[in-house]
């Protein structure tokens, strides 16, 4: 067993720990790992080029940027905020938990690319979360805005990850089935996908609780930092 290619992993860990430019870290790690495995320059370049092309679907999110950019230019995010602020009983918790559930169900139906950070979180979900939070605690400062936006992105991740594996034709299910098939164990994709349900439910419960806790803590933080007169206004 040749353990030298593990140097590439060491490069990744050290690079991220030292907060060097991730692109450079990843490029160097690939080259180090390949050279340590005794790969020639010609093979290395062909492998890099081939894998890069195979993975180009990951940049498809850039297709949304002209639409999102244009609409934002004309006030999409401001409008999203106003719209949410008009709902009387909407809180941050209710809004984000509803989004979490919706995202999970859609992912279970195989529609995991329907929403996402570029398609829905930046233009809609993040500003709406900020507005829902501001409705209950008043105007957010920059630190609080970033916390709420980060939580919105995290909610999208959790909803997507722990929904998609329940979908039959999802890559992960097919990968599991394919792996076993290669080793002489025949499995029905449905049998694999159904076992993702308990985790999906657990993920929903855990993250929904965390959203509720986040909102409670945020209220407390805002109450502590805010003078009494403003607090009265915010609660009125």
């Amino acid at each position, binding site marked *: 067993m040749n353990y030298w290619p593990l140097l590439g992993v060491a490069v990744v860990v050290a690079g991220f720990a030292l907060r060097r430019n991730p692109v450079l870290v990843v490029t160097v790690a690939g080259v180090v790992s390949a050279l340590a495995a005794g790969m020639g320059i010609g093979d290395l370049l062909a492998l890099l080029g*081939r*894998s890069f092309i195979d993975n180009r679907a990951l940049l498809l999110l850039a297709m949304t940027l002209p*639409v999102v950019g*244009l609409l934002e230019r004309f006030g999409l995010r401001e409008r999203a905020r106003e719209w949410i602020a008009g709902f009387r009983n909407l809180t941050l918790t209710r809004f984000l938990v509803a989004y979490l559930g919706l995202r999970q169900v859609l992912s279970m139906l195989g529609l995991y690319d329907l929403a996402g950070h570029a398609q829905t979180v930046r233009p809609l979900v993040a500003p709406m979360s900020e507005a829902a939070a501001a409705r209950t605690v008043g105007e957010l400062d920059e630190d609080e805005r970033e*916390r709420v936006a980060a939580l919105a992105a995290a909610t999208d991740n959790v909803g997507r990850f722990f929904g998609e594996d329940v979908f039959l034709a999802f890559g992960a299910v097919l990968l599991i089935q394919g792996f076993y098939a290669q080793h002489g164990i025949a499995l029905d994709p449905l049998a694999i996908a159904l076992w993702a349900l308990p985790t999906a439910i657990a993920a929903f419960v855990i993250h929904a609780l965390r959203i509720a806790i986040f909102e409670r803590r945020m209220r407390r933080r805002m109450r502590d930092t805010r003078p009494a007169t403003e607090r009265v206004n915010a609660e009125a």
Partner: protein
Amino acid sequence: MLRLEYVYWLLGAFLVFTAAANLRERRFAVAGFWAILACPFLFGEAIAAALASGSRWPAQAMGVGVLALGILASQSRGTPALVPDRKNNKTAILGRTSQPKAEDPGASAQRFGNRLFGPALLIPLVTLLLALGGPHLHWNGATLLDAKQATLVALGLACSIAFVAALRVTRASVGAGLGEGRRLLDAMGWAALLPMLLATLGSVFAATGVGNAIAALVGDVIPVDSALACLLAFALGMVVFTTIMGNAFAAFPVMMAGIGLPLLVQRHGAAPAVLGSLGMLTGYCGTLLTPMAANFNIVPAVLLELRDQYGVIRAQWPTAIVLLAVNVVLMALLVWR
């Protein structure tokens, strides 16, 4: 039939537009960066075909391009930093790209009202309709969408339709619309490249035997007679390896071949379907923890203009840890049912 390749060409054209806009502003390094990144989209199919017929130089040239992207991204001053600089964003907006007359987004929001939501919602709605119905639609005897990649083709089409709708609602010109897209792309800078590059690194790690080396190391350490020790090693191995690779898909075959199949299934009689499913989801907990999963954890931090590039990870790690614990308990209860 509408193939994914057409969507790639469209995206390639957008990248070329972005490169040209930067070239006009004499930001040469940035222009070069987007121009090289356009190549896999414009020539990807041709390069793969050449490789299949035994001609390796186009793929090798692309490999040189990948290294060049890495150097450009880390060197060029013009490529925006990961920590977004609001002021730079402003200058890009007011730059020489053809823009509609600068209008305050707040006032504009009043003017257009809920009509602004239409095009934004068209992206998910059209994707949904096309992904579900597209493979069944026929036109001139051929299916409308390539069934194997229906969702991605549908997403590409939906973005194009939504773009046209957005132009109609705002009455902006095509150039102005693309200019806005370019502004966002420039603001993302090298963060846009990171997901593709990380996936490439995953392939390199797999090809150079990194996975096998890790599995061998883990196999040397654990007491193989204890079923529970094997299970814990498998679960933690999935998390650690996913954290390193940024992708549970890469970790799964390695950990299954190293521990899951020989020790848990064959030696201790674990149920393969349960182990596979829960094992993969355990890896997903690792995905929530790592900057290596850039498209989920780093790119949104940039998109949402967070000052902390690890802000999204900070918001989700407690969920991941608690869920990981729940998952391990579920595995212990269910695989030997």
